[in-house]
């Protein structure tokens, strides 16, 4: 036992004033915790990557054999690549966000809730942390680009990183917002079944969104992930040589006859993200 060591002086650190510094520090420390936890969990890093790889090479190759491939046409796996990037970002983001429910279950949440920092800082730190982790995972998958004929072009990579980061931020905010209303770990399953999987399948990640039945078309346009996937796909396709037979896969997303500009699509994703993080902050500040 460590009795008899130097006496503990009373350090008057607790009198510091509330400030922006406090809030920024809280954002940073919550963000850092998220990264540490991610780096400690190897199985999680692997499992969230295995599924997209299976989708890309097993499902992707299988579906590719259904399509008539004309000379110089777009490889179906190239078409799916943006979808699986979105997929890894989606599942990593949600997984990070939902750890809030675990934090609550195992008490760590209270350690944060009683700290003398604004709750909004905790939420922002969490969202940025989850977004960072998801972007890193997306980047790992991005390293496979060459296998599906996507060139390692610096400009393309920077664009994709930025787009993935924005998508990750919005999706983490969605997850945090959902988690802020969840009391039980079991509710996580419900959110996955009810929102996350539909969001993924409706996003155009695995099939082109052209010539869909009306009802399905409407649903895909409601899904915010659709706009993220399309923006990523536009970036990739602009660096891939398109042959004549690929037009069906390469169609841009439209509202009626208006082909949405990429900037507009990213704007939608950003607005949705900000609305969700705002909602999450309101939830957490209210809780008492």
């Amino acid at each position, binding site marked *: 036992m*460590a009795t008899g060591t130097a006496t503990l002086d*009373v350090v008057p650190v607790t009198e510091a004033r509330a400030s922006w*510094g406090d809030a920024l520090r809280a954002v*940073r420390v919550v963000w850092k*915790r998220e990264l540490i936890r991610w780096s400690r969990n190897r199985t999680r890093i692997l499992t969230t990557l295995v599924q997209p790889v299976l989708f890309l090479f097993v499902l992707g190759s299988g579906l590719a054999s259904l399509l008539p491939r004309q000379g110089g046409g777009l490889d179906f796996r190239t078409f799916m690549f943006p979808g699986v990037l979105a997929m890894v970002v989606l599942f990593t983001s949600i997984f990070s966000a939902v750890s809030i429910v675990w934090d609550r279950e195992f008490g760590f949440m209270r350690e944060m809730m*009683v700290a003398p920092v604004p709750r909004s800082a905790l939420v922002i730190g969490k969202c940025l942390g989850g977004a960072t982790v998801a972007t890193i995972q997306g980047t790992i998958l991005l390293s496979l680009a060459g296998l599906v004929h996507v060139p390692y072009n610096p400009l393309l990579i920077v664009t994709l990183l930025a787009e993935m980061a924005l998508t990750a931020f919005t999706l983490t905010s969605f997850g945090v917002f959902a988690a802020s209303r969840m009391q039980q770990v079991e509710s996580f399953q419900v959110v996955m079944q009810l929102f996350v999987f539909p969001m993924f399948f409706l996003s155009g990640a695995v099939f082109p969104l052209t010539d869909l039945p009306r009802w399905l078309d409407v649903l895909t346009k409601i899904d915010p992930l659709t706009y993220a996937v399309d923006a990523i796909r536009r970036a990739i396709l602009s660096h891939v040589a398109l042959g004549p037979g690929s037009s069906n896969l390469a169609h841009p997303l439209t509202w009626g006859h208006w082909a949405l500009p990429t900037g507009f699509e990213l704007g939608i994703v950003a607005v949705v993200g900000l609305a969700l993080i705002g909602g999450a902050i309101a939830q957490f500040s209210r809780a008492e």
Partner: protein
Amino acid sequence: MIASRIDEALPSLEADGGARPAIEARDLRKRFGDFEAVRGVTFDVMPGETFGFLGPNGAGKSTTISMLCTLLKPSGGTALVAGHDVVAARAEVRRRIGLVFQDTTLDDYLTAAENLSFHAELYGVPKHLARQRLQQVLEMVGLWDRRDSITRTFSGGMKRRLEIARGLLHSPRVLFLDEPTVGLDPQTRLHIWTYINELKRREQITMFLTTHYMEEAEYCDRLAIMDNGVIVVTGTPEELKAGIGKDRVELRTDDDELARRRLKEVFGIEAAGGDGVVFQVEHGEEFIPRLFASLGVGIRSVSVARPTLDDVFMEHTGRTIRDAESSGSGIRNNPFVRAQAGRR
């Protein structure tokens, strides 16, 4: 004995620049739906004092702590902690308190040192002080050597000690300890109390703790006994015991049920139920011969003891704390308190 305790408390009062209580609670209440968990508690805790809440499961101890540390909003009454209102000046209160919750609140994926650094940053401890302070508190709880171990690998007692270290890291004025030893083996409990007593000696800190272990309540300078959401009595452990003036008699008989009935008929004494026959009586030793003469039930063994805090509890609530525990039924649907159910 009582006088000397008051003397001990005095220097810290002066050092704090006046006799302003560290905690002032006035008619504090908390209602959950139509159930009132805390029904108007009023007490003061002086700076430097170790004040304990003693009470059975569901008495409202944790709820009271949650209100004092700003996690729950009182539904009535007021409370000042370190001079600040727990509703109006939440941030001010939070800055000045340390907390050790009833259930663990460590991050299992982080190391001991990482858990503490996280805390230091959240509380704005300057970097250069934080490192030195981190070593101090970890050495104090004997975990400095384990600072780089992931806390998932810690035993219950180590986790508890780490949480106490964390609660102290930012040098709070008031440290709240909610059942600091619950679920631990007796030896570890003793260790934790060694640290807490050590702390009292070394740091100028006010401690508010809850427990339902009678032996531990004895360590407090002052106690409030809580039952069903109200404080039934407050005082130093000595005062409380002296106030009883009765001895505790425990009988083993051939027929406890009959013995209890006879006690009531012959001597007018109400005995508590449960294991054996337990009651309080003045001048216990002199009472025993009369008991043998008139009880009319075979007595297997008798023990007479000076009053304990358990007797104090019984005197004021009509139950032993163990009875109160076993009959206590709590709905724990609060996300904040839910995890504690598993610990018991």
